[in-house]
């Protein structure tokens, strides 16, 4: 009756331990100049590209297009009004669809980072590399420098080989952490983001064709309260918060008001560091290097 159950236990343990062995959180992380919290405002600027990739119908694409025509400009305005530098994760192909908005973002001092060539990572290694190189080249044509960050499923070793300092994906812990390879060497720094602090999860109906009963429908007051509570908790802990915004979602007029309100509340407390992901990554790499491996960030951005 119990044949094989011990093996099941061992297999489950191995799976959990195997994952845990790849994660190296940064302990007792202190931010520059005694600040209590680092806040990364991150913008996933995929406009209609992901909708197109998923073969969604014309009105879904038009919904995404709002992000490029209207939303991205409004986000830039809000950031500018608060003198905040944000990180804009952009698929390479968006550089061909909305070059003006991205150039404006660079002029404002925001960081442009990779969000895959066309919002997917091919399984074939050669094509994956080809896509990443295309995305890097497209971003470099806009910003004049190679991106150092990514929000993607790209192979971490590939990102590292191409000079990336960080990836921003997944949330095994609240703060920045290193991902280790099978030999226990750190491959890449990760800046976590969580779906609970992601506008699309509250306001983008039919996200990945989700059904109407799982409506991603809410209102700005409710979401602002939730995110404010999330910020306060991280502030008390002395931590990190990554706020993920999509221009086609947060660029709607009612949510621009909400974002402005949230930023004002956060700014009302002392010691809040609004930084780009690159700034946070360099601080971690310089002052909290991984115990084994991973290059320091000192030197040119594209070393």
């Amino acid at each position, binding site marked *: 009756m119990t044949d094989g159950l011990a093996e099941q236990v061992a297999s489950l343990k191995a799976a959990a331990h195997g994952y845990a062995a790849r994660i190296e959180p940064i302990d007792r992380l202190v931010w520059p100049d005694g600040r209590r919290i680092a806040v990364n405002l991150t913008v996933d600027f995929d406009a209609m590209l992901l909708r197109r990739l998923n073969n969604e119908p014309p009105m879904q694409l038009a919904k995404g297009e709002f992000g490029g025509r209207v939303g991205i400009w409004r986000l830039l305005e809000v950031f500018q009004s608060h003198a905040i530098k944000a990180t804009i994760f952009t698929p390479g192909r968006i550089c061909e669809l909305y070059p*003006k908005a991205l150039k404006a973002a660079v002029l404002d001092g925001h960081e442009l980072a990779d969000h895959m060539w066309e919002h997917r990572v091919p399984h074939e290694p050669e094509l994956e590399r080809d896509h990443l190189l295309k995305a890097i080249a497209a971003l470099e044509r806009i910003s004049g420098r190679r991106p150092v960050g990514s929000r993607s499923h790209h192979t971490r070793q590939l990102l590292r080989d191409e000079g990336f300092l960080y990836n921003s994906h997944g949330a095994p812990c609240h703060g920045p952490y290193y991902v280790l390879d099978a030999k226990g060497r750190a491959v890449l720094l990760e800046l976590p983001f969580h779906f609970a602090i992601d506008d699309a999860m509250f306001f983008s*109906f039919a996200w990945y064709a989700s059904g109407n*009963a799982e409506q991603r429908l809410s209102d700005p007051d409710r979401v602002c309260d939730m995110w404010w509570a999330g910020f306060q908790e991280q502030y008390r802990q002395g931590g990190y918060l990554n706020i993920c915004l999509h221009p086609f979602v947060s660029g709607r*007029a009612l949510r621009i008001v909400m974002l402005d309100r949230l930023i004002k509340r956060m700014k009302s407390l002392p010691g809040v560091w609004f930084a780009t992901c690159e700034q946070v990554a360099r601080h971690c790499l310089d002052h909290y290097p991984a115990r084994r491996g991973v290059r320091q960030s000192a030197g040119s951005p594209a070393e």
Partner: protein
Amino acid sequence: MPWKERYTISDETSLGDRDVRWPDGRRCAVHIVVDLSIAGGMEGIRESDLAGSVAHFAANEGLDRLLAVLAKHGLRATFAVPAVIADLYPRRVAQLIACGHELAANGFRHEDVSALRRDEEKARLDLTTKMLTEISGRRPTGWFSLPRQADPFAGGTISANTMELLIEAGYGYMGNGLADDIPHYWVTDFARRRAMLTLPYYYHFDDQFFCMFPQQGTGLENSDMLFRNWRAELEAQYGRGRFFTMTLHPQHIGWCNRMAGLEDFFSHLARLPDLWNATGAEIARHWTHTYPAHSALKLEDSIWKDYPGSLS
């Protein structure tokens, strides 16, 4: 190929807040859309949709109350009506026109046309226009393809031919687009700059997605969220001097508690000076006159390339 094709329907940037003008120096346009479809799913209105309490309420008490509240607040709306509904309730059509509202089309039986052959879609479109014209005594200038409550995506469904067919049929505007929050042009032919004027729609301001009862198995009543969304959007768009739109269904908004919320919202609306409450045709007339497509559309030539191993 032009960089727009298969990705974008309009030009690269919207009109900035300062460039948006409304008649007589009004500050913000308000477009109220009332959808008289009772379709449950993408096949459009079925016998089973009509032979039930929801449809009965929609066509009677729900519509009575909605018309009364609009009249009480001096507001005019565009009614998006499927041909079969107009045919079923011709006196209602006459009534809403007499109240100063606009009659616009919302499909033949509000069915999904996205997989129809061009000639089949054209035949339905022409029949819809003919029926609405005969029933109301005037030709509709607006066409809607509004979403149904059970649609997989809440944007409304059209085919690759719909916009071009609407231009050919002489329609003045398409009533629901999502690429902007002011009227904008849906380009059907990049080379010839042919485009259809499109009025904004957004499911966050559509009652049917917040008032899901009595849809079986969903059990969601989020009308409080709906009212907060309306109010937040109205105030934000008023501040910018742009456009506010809301979509109502008698079977959803007409029910007691929701009607009270709608009245509260209309009272709030009345406190904002210089709003321009207009119907779709009036908005379209203003827009095509002030921002004609040939000068307002800023289409640029191809920078989009095809790459091996990439989406085209």
